[in-house]
Structures are given as C-alpha cells and as structure tokens.
C-alpha cells in the first residue's frame, strides 16, 4: 500500500440543494474511486474551478481532494460564485428606478 493510501480524502459534493464536505477514511467505500480522480494541489483546484465556470455546464458532481484546505477552497469558490450572482441581482434590483423595461438579468 502506498504511503498516501493511509491519508484521508475529502469529497466536495455539489447538487442543486447543497454543498457537502465529506471525509473518507482509507479502506472505506468510495475511497478508491475518490483517489482515482483526486486533485492534489491548491492551484489545480483553482484552475479546475475556473474551467468548470467557463464551461458553463453547472457544477453538480462529486469532486475529490487530498487536503482539506484544497477542498474548502473549491467549495468556497463555488459558494462565492453563487453569492456573487445573488449580489449582482440585488444590485440590479436596487438600482432599478422604473425607467428601463426590466431590471436586467
């Protein structure tokens, strides 16, 4: 068994309802599957997020990370992107003074 197989993995599960962080211990169900598509570096996580965002096909899925910090970064970036959309909509609604046909969007 490789040395890294003794370390836990962290899954970020994104669906239409929520974002969940899950720790998977070695030899537990799902560990091997997570290991196969695991993202190791923080930079890769950031770039992967940007690629997903640019593709515009949504974020739903299960993403695996070796380190908790990297998993958190990815989850936070997703949540911030959602929040940014909310903020932008709020800005538009707040700035709408009735002169335009709609408040944008």
């Amino acid at each position, binding site marked *: 068994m490789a040395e890294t197989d003794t370390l836990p993995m962290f899954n970020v599960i994104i669906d239409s309802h929520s974002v969940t962080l899950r720790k998977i211990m070695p030899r537990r169900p799902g560990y091997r599957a997570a290991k196969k598509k695991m993202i190791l570096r*923080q930079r890769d996580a950031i770039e992967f997020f940007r690629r997903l965002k640019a593709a515009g096909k949504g974020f739903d899925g299960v993403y695996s990370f070796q380190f908790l910090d990297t998993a958190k970064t990815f989850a*936070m*970036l997703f949540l911030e992107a959602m929040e940014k959309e909310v903020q932008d909509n709020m800005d538009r609604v707040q700035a709408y003074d009735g002169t335009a046909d709609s408040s944008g969007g």
Partner: protein
Amino acid sequence: MGKKKKRKGEKRADKKIRGNKNDDSARKTKKEASLGGVTVADAPTPSPLADPNTPKKKRNKFYEREMRRLHVELVVLQEWIKREGRRVVVIFEGRDAAGKGGVIKRIIEPLNPRICRVVALGTPTDRQKTQWYFQRYAAELPAAGEMVLFDRSWYNRAGVERVMGFCTDSEYWEFLRSCPEYERMLVRSGATIVKYWFSVSDEEQERRFKARAKDPTKRWKLSPMDLESRNRWQAYSRAKDEMLVHTDIAQARWYVVNSDDKKRARLNCISHLLSLFPYEYAVPKKMKLPKRAPEKREGYLRPPLENQNFVPEIY
C-alpha cells in the same frame, strides 16, 4: 488679439500640466480605463527603463521626468477627489521588501496630507483583538474628499497571520468569507477600493534583505518576522494565491504590480492608479489680489530677537 494670446497661453500651460495629449498611449489608458471591469490598457510603450541597453544616466533622467509628470497628475487627481467628494481607498499588499513603501512614498510626496494620508497599523492591542476584525481598519476609512493609502491592510489575516499561525483556521476562513462582503458594502456606500499586490521574486527579495541588513538607514525595516517569512516562501505563495482568488471581486479588483524593478514598479503603479479615475483638470478661477488696506499701526514693536530660540543656521 490680447485675449487670443492669453487663451493660447492658458492652453499651453494646461497642456504642460496634463502632459502630452497627443500621446496615443495616454489617450488609450484614459479611454480604456474603467473601475468596474479589468480593461486597463496594457499599452506596450517603448520605455527606456524596460531596455537594458539604455545607459543608466538616461534611464534615471527618464524616470525623474516621468515621475515629475505623474506627480502633477496626482495633484490634479487630488483636486478632483476633493471637488467631487470622492472616498478612495488604495490597498498596498505584498511580501516584505516588495516595494510597497517606496510607491506610497512617491504617491504622497506631492499631495496634501489632509486629503491623502497613509495608514500603516501595527499589531493590534489586547482590546482590539477582542473587537470585530475589521473594526480598527474601519476607523481609518476616508471621509468625502479623502484618499487613504493602506500600507498593508485587513488582508494581513490572509497573509502574515495565516502563514505565521497568528489566527485560527476558522478565523481565516471567516475572513475569506466576510472580506468580499465587507468590501462590497464599502463600495455600495460610495467608496472606491483599489487593491495592489506587489510581486517580487525570491532572488530579488533576498537581495533587498541583504541590502537592508547592510545599510544602517534601512536596518529598521528588517524585523524578526521578515526573517522568518524568508523561510516560508511557499506558504506565503499559497496564501497569496488563495487570497487573490477569494477576494478579487468586480467591485474591488486586485491588480498585480511586477516589482522586481523598483523604478518601473513605481511608475507603472502610479500611472495605473491615475488611469482608474475619470478626473479632469479644472482650472481654478483667476484671482486678482486686492490692494492691501492701509493698516493702523497701534504701537506694535517686534520683541527682541534674543528672546526667541532660533534653529542654528549651520548650512
């Protein structure tokens, strides 16, 4: 005829103050600059500073001339900020010895300290440590018609505090969450936030540290914390990447300044800062000093000079 001459003269003076209007790059930066987007023109101007073959004397002369021109523009910007009642926050972040202080020094040099001031907060007191994290920074934010330059800012939490372990994990993640909200709030309230990250290479930082250690006038800049940060280069890089990706929001963008060359970094940063504002030069109304009214002498006699403590005139 006389009027015409005067107008021409005024125009010439205006041109002198605003720099060469026909300069394509200048026009481009003014046009393309916008605070909302990231469309700042990266006009590749042929600069003697970028050319290593240019003699040092010529480079220095060019630098001095450009700095003088930018200083004049900064004064115009200052007057515009005052006139329009703008609130401007400029944040300078970067590794130690990246050149933040040098740029700040050049920005404030020609400006009125009542309008443009520098905030460089030290370590928080025990009382401040119990406050809301942004509280001590909020107290320093500008009022209408002011510009505040933060020499390091609330981003300490995502940088030095994170790397050196001065904050807990939960405090750090809470910061990354609340910082964009805090800045959006400031921008909605009418403030403008500009954030600069000074990027310096490992080798250049080492060279500057050595120069600081050698030069007695610069030694005060070296703290034990700086020396410790040398050993954590990668941790800082990781913290920086994380910070930029979480806090680069449309309302308050991060701009990275390559600062391996100090002089270029200063000129680039100041000219970029200027390009972000749609300031205009308003010629102050002409004034005519009225004749001094004859003063009534009421027996005033200047006291003997020996009673006053004069500074010795040794030069």
